């Protein structure tokens, strides 16, 4: 138990889970039922999408890394250059712009009844987000492959007749880079939550709120953009000049406060978990 708490990553994981539970209990007691339901849905949807982003980032990242490695060793360099060129292009598009346009596209598809299943909306949202995130994982995996191919064990394994795909996929990426990949995926989870909330907030504030409500699932970002949540957040500013009002925040402005807390505290916790994980495994 002490070991569990002493490690920064597990300690922060416990803090995150326990704090979220404490907030839920507080909300069950003091927040009205419809708002509680919305906040629960928003939290659940946000993390389902973020976890899907992690899964798709891993799949895409692994596939592209292996593809690039295979193309790199070919004598014909054109396909390799084409793929790296495309990757650099994706890198040059700010993620928020790419994801925003993807979400607008999804909204139109849902509004036009081309997509009707909620699960499919989740999957498409996650894929479109992972398209702009997976490059970080590719960079990490390629660095690891480059590092290990310079070591003797790579040549030794090749001389022993072990196929290159097994050396790369199993010996380098799975056996020797799994912890690095896991650490990156924890960071990706945090980034996915941040981007998800930001894009949903922007769409809900800037584009038509009614369309968004009908077409896209409720997330913490879209909940924060609702007028009642915004008023709750505005109350924090009022508290800065009227400290006596602080107590009201935790009873009368609970919806906005809960959503803002869940976003910010989740981001901080995931950041500390990723750092702690790297420290524990000396990455």
């Amino acid at each position, binding site marked *: 138990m002490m070991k569990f708490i002493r490690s920064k990553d597990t300690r922060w994981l416990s803090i995150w889970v326990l704090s979220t539970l404490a907030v839920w209990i507080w909300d069950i007691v003091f927040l009205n039922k419809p708002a509680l339901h919305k906040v629960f849905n928003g939290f659940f949807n946000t993390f389902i999408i973020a976890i899907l982003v992690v899964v798709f980032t891993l799949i895409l990242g692994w596939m592209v890394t292996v593809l690039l490695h295979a193309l790199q060793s070919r004598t014909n360099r054109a396909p390799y250059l084409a793929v790296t*060129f495309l990757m*650099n*292009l994706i*890198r*040059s*598009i*700010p*993620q*928020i*712009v790419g994801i925003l346009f993807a979400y*607008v596209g999804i909204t139109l598809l849902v509004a036009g009844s081309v997509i009707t299943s909620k699960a499919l909306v989740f999957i498409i949202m996650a894929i479109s987000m992972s398209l702009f995130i997976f490059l*970080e994982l590719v960079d990490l995996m390629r660095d690891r492959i480059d590092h290990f191919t310079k070591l003797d064990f790579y040549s030794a394994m090749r001389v022993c007749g072990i196929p290159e795909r097994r050396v790369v996929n199993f010996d380098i990426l799975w056996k020797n880079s799994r912890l690095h990949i896991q650490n990156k995926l924890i960071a990706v989870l945090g980034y996915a939550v*941040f*981007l998800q*909330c*930001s894009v949903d*907030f*922007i769409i809900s*504030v*800037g*584009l*038509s709120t009614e369309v968004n409500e009908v077409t896209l699932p409720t997330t913490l970002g879209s909940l*924060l953009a609702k007028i009642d949540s*915004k008023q709750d*957040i*505005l109350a*924090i*500013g*009022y508290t*800065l*000049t009227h400290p006596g009002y602080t107590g009201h925040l935790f009873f009368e402005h609970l919806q906005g406060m809960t959503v*803002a807390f869940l*976003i*910010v*505290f989740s*981001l*901080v916790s995931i*950041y500390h978990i990723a*750092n702690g994980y*790297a420290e524990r495994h000396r990455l």
Partner: protein
Amino acid sequence: MKSKLLEHLAGIAFVTFALLAALWVITIASGTAQRKQQAGMERFGDLSFIDFNNPFERALLRDVINIYYPGRSDRNDSLYNAIVKYKQKEFADKLQETHVAEGLSLQKIIEILGMYVNFFIIFVLVMVLTYYGVQTMAVFRFAYKKRRALSPASSASRKIQRMVIDFLAGLGTLLLFCPAYVIAYSIRTEFNTDTVVFMVLLGVISNGVLITYANKFYSFLVAESRKGYVDTAIVKNMNAGYRFHSADGIPISSILNPVKKFKGHVFDHIFRNARFQYLSTIKEQASFLITGLIIIEMALNIHGHLNYEMLRQLLYKNYSIVVVMILLIFYTVKMTDIFTDYLIHRENMKYENTNQ
């Protein structure tokens, strides 16, 4: 460097061509849609000379139709009604589009360029401040941790002091991780959040940019400090203390200085080597920063700013304007990439002493 520059230029050319092609397709598609809409009216002949707001002219049209098709009053009535209904719809559509539909005129391009210059200045300011903030925070944290490791808290007051510092650091981390819109809406009632100064400040402290990259720089410092040359330098009597007010330590003024130099201290070498590694992450940081600025402008609905305008034009389906704005943002990212590659190349030349 030449090959990298070539790759960047090829990327710029490719995206410019792709987006201009998209612009062309959009223009053609909207022209076709407009023609399709007008085609409905064409079957009635040229009626542009009729003022449909004038009841006399409307009655005249009805009479003309009745004279043209005598004895078919029912058909003529429905034809007349269809024409009037079409004209009313056309008028209503025009009225609705007057405030929202915009094309890509010279005036609009100048307006967009003005907004872009504003965005670019904010971006450069935030980038410079973040570059300074990242290094300062990381160096301060490194020195503080070293001090702490060298002199563990012995007295109760020291322990309390450290706990207070840790608590404040925790609160600071919470603030630095706040998305820009949470901070901005929290203080909107008390402060004017639509100013450039506030935007720059928000760009620096929010969205986790500063803390993420300060942590990256800190890990570079830690990794460097574990290398053999540091031990060698300490054995050879270089200064290696981390107190802020001692002769062999690191003065606060050096940490806060924009050009950080720690002469005679082993940390000078640790810092320089860590900064070299940090340079390669600037591209990523710039992209993240632009994402943050876009979020700030869009989420806070700051009128007259490039990204808010892009969101507005997207809502009004003025895609030609949106394409130009995306192109400008893309150029900003590419310019930063080229500049970063140049910095890395210059540093490489310094250490490798080659003319690659």
